[in-house]
């Protein structure tokens, strides 16, 4: 179980997160939606401490990390318990596809090279890109790169995978292949938290939907609750924008 308690984060005196509480059950997929600038990505980055909250507590598998007294080791522990998929892929440009997926296993988890390669190979096969193992990231399309990034996250066997707008940087025709892979691993009950603007996808995949605006959680519930019977006025207004374009 992942839980966040009273997370506060500011940049240059502007409060981006105004006290977030959220609980994510193991094996479920939580999707965070909301307008741009509402703090969704910042929240995700606070979970693996790429951003350090000023106040609040992150609990991963019963181990609590309080923002007030974080040690160097806490950062490493939290990051080893989580994996992050970036909007712009974040693959290591100087490493081959296989090395990209295996380096965390060998350097961080201290597995042997053979063991790391074996796990990386499995992960790459899962996203259908094992045949690209000796290529470099820039030789792949955006969709393929993002699938490798997902394989890298999977290979680490984290408690939770955090997706930060995984399809926002992609050409429209490449979005599908990435969403398909995310759907597949969601079906295997990997714990995931996804920030996305793909409402149809959110509806399909989310066990829990969280609507955020202005640094706060406005409403949360099942996909049915949020998309079919939203209670808050702000949620309805936000979703209405998408209803014009999509059938939900």
């Amino acid at each position, binding site marked *: 179980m992942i839980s966040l308690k009273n997370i506060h984060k500011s940049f240059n005196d502007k409060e981006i997160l105004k006290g977030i509480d959220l609980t994510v059950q193991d094996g479920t997929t939580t999707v965070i939606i909301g307008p741009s600038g509402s703090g969704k990505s910042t929240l995700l980055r606070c979970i693996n401490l*790429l951003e350090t909250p000023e106040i609040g507590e992150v609990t991963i598998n019963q181990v609590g990390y309080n923002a007030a007294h974080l040690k160097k080791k806490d950062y490493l522990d939290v990051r080893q318990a989580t*994996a992050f998929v970036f909007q712009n892929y974040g693959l290591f440009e*100087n490493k081959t596809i296989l090395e990209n997926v295996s380096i965390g296993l060998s350097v961080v988890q201290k597995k042997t090279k053979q063991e790391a390669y074996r796990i990386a190979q499995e992960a790459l096969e899962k996203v259908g890109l094992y045949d690209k193992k000796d290529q470099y990231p820039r030789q792949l399309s955006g969709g393929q790169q993002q699938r490798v990034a997902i394989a890298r996250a999977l290979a680490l066997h984290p408690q939770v995978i955090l997706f930060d707008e995984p399809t926002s940087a992609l050409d429209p025709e490449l979005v599908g292949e990435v969403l398909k892979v995310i759907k597949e691993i969601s079906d295997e009950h990997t714990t995931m938290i996804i920030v996305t603007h793909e409402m149809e996808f959110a509806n399909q995949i989310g066990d829990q939907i969280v609507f955020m605006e202005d640094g706060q959680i406005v409403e949360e519930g099942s996909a049915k609750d949020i998309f079919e019977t939203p209670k808050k006025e702000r949620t309805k207004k936000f979703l209405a924008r998408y209803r014009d374009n999509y059938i939900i």
Partner: protein
Amino acid sequence: MNDRIIRILLDSFFKILIPGLQYTIPLTIITFAIGLLIAIAVAIVRVYKIKVIDQIVRFYVWVFRGTPLLVQLFIIFYGLPNIGIQLSAWVAAIITFSLNVGAYCSETLRGAILSVDKTQKEAALSIGMTNNQAMFYIILPQAFKNAISPLFNSLIALVKDTSLAANITVVEMFMAAQRIAANTYEPFALYCEVAVIYLIFCTALTYLQKYCEERLSRRG
């Protein structure tokens, strides 16, 4: 050109080339290698902004980029004995050239490290790497790729700068040419000849640079 000059040029060619192979090239390789190590250390200190040490290395870069190499050579070889530090010409040359090239390359590398996309570091941290692991496995290799052209610039400049070591009695190529020119009274021919040999060395490095760049750019 008369036969005498041709004979002098032919006779002297190896007499100049051999000190080149014995001194100029080793001096270049050794000092560039040490200089690069200094540069990496300095660049990392400056990127991490490590307290106090950062101030010290900034002072070092400021001094070595802001004073002539020839003056640095003179201070270290002729000046230091006054305060009780006696160095052989060879050691003085290695120290001076290493520190000098290290100062320049540190700035090249610092810029190259800072130009590596921020996501690369975040991605490295996100998979659980420490700052140091991220630096050595991910950021530095990419920084070196970005820095390859300016680093070769410094290396090629260094090949030629080693001729200044003649001024502190190191018998490298230029000193050898000077001696032959003085004996034969043919400075024009001899200095042109040594210039051609420098040119050959630097041309070889230009090809090496091209090879390195092509190898690195094949990575996508």
